[in-house]
Structures are given as C-alpha cells and as structure tokens.
C-alpha cells in the first residue's frame, strides 16, 4: 500500500543541536512537502520539492533546510535547533494540486527542543 513514512515519531533535541527529520514515500509522487503544525497556526509550509534534487522555500523556511536526494526521500534539517522549533512536523506527498491531486500525509514527528 502506498504510504508516507516519517521518522522519528518523537524527538527530543537540545538547543543548538542538529536535527534531521526523514520522510519516505512509496506513492511515486513528484512533489513532497514539509509542514509544521502549531495550535492556532494550522499547517504552515516550510519547504517543498518538485522532484529529486530540487528544493524550494515555503512560507516559513528560516532556520530550516531541506534535501531531496531521490524521488522517495525528503529530509528536513534543523542545523541549529531552537525552542521555537518545538512543534509537530508533517511530511506529505502529492502530484499536481491544480489537477486535483490530493496530498498523502505521514504520521508526523513530534519535536521538542529543550
């Protein structure tokens, strides 16, 4: 069954440390997305990718980097984690939204930066 898998499910990081969140999809979708979700802010787009080797900035990219080494994998990197980055992070994959493709989401990663 096609799916989006995120790892880890939970992560505690120290301030100033490096954090890597991983996402793997078996949907063969071209596009992948990283969102964070905070109470009162809904889903906010951090980075996205149109395919292997491409990354684009979303609405709130500061403090985050992304990497898309293959069609299946898309990582979110926090080089210097800060407490303000404590959140729930969702990865999603999809084809062309303008053509009606919906997104499939992973189960999320709960990140606590202390």
């Amino acid at each position: 069954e096609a799916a989006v898998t995120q790892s880890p499910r939970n992560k505690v990081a120290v301030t100033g440390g490096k954090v890597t969140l991983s996402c793997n999809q078996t949907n063969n979708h071209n596009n992948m997305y990283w969102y964070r979700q905070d109470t009162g802010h809904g889903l906010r787009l951090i980075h996205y990718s149109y395919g292997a080797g491409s990354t684009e900035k979303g609405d709130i990219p500061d403090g985050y980097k992304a990497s898309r080494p293959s069609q299946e994998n898309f990582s979110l990197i926090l080089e210097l984690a800060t407490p303000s980055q404590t959140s729930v992070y969702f990865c999603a994959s999809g084809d062309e939204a303008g053509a009606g493709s919906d997104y499939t989401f992973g189960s999320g990663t709960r990140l606590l930066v202390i």
Partner: protein
Amino acid sequence: GDSVTQTEGLVTLTEGLPVMLNCTYQTIYSNPFLFWYVQHLNESPRLLLKSFTDNKRTEHQGFHATLHKSSSSFHLQKSSAQLSDSALYYCALSNYQLIWGSGTKLIIKP
C-alpha cells in the same frame, strides 16, 4: 495572492444537530479544486472530499459540500453530527500546490 478563509476557529455542537463549517476562497484561477481535509486527535490530516465542478454536491462519509464559484464558497455540511466527527477540519484550494485555511476545530458533545 490566493487564499482560503475559515471564519470559525472553534465550533461546538450537540450530537444530532446539523454541522456547517464555512470556507470561502480567493483565487486568480477560473477552475480551482477545493478540498476538505479532516484531522482527528493525534492523527495526520486525510482527505475528506474534493470538488472541481460548480454547483455540484460532493458527498463522502456523511459529509457533503457544494462548490459555488459565484460566491467563492465551499462549505462543509452534515445533517446530523456524531461524537466521532470531533476533529480539526481544513479547507484547501489548489493552485500549483494546496493553499490551506487556518482550520476549524469541531467538538461534538453528547
């Protein structure tokens, strides 16, 4: 730019009453897709229903919505709320990617 507005941040209803969650949008595209996603507690968002066709009712899992391009609206409705409908609901609009509303938290009480 394109945008989606969900005016209610929180809706609280008694079980059995009708549900209506508001969604309006702005877009330069003449033929957008509109989506409703539902997210239950400690789960990820999943597609509830979507529509492209003006004035056509779309139904899924007891919920329905009709895209009205004349009023740029795509309200989500259900005739009788169930306790299991308690969740966060997002309306979204397509351009080259999904543009999300801020979400409406629906709480159904016995």
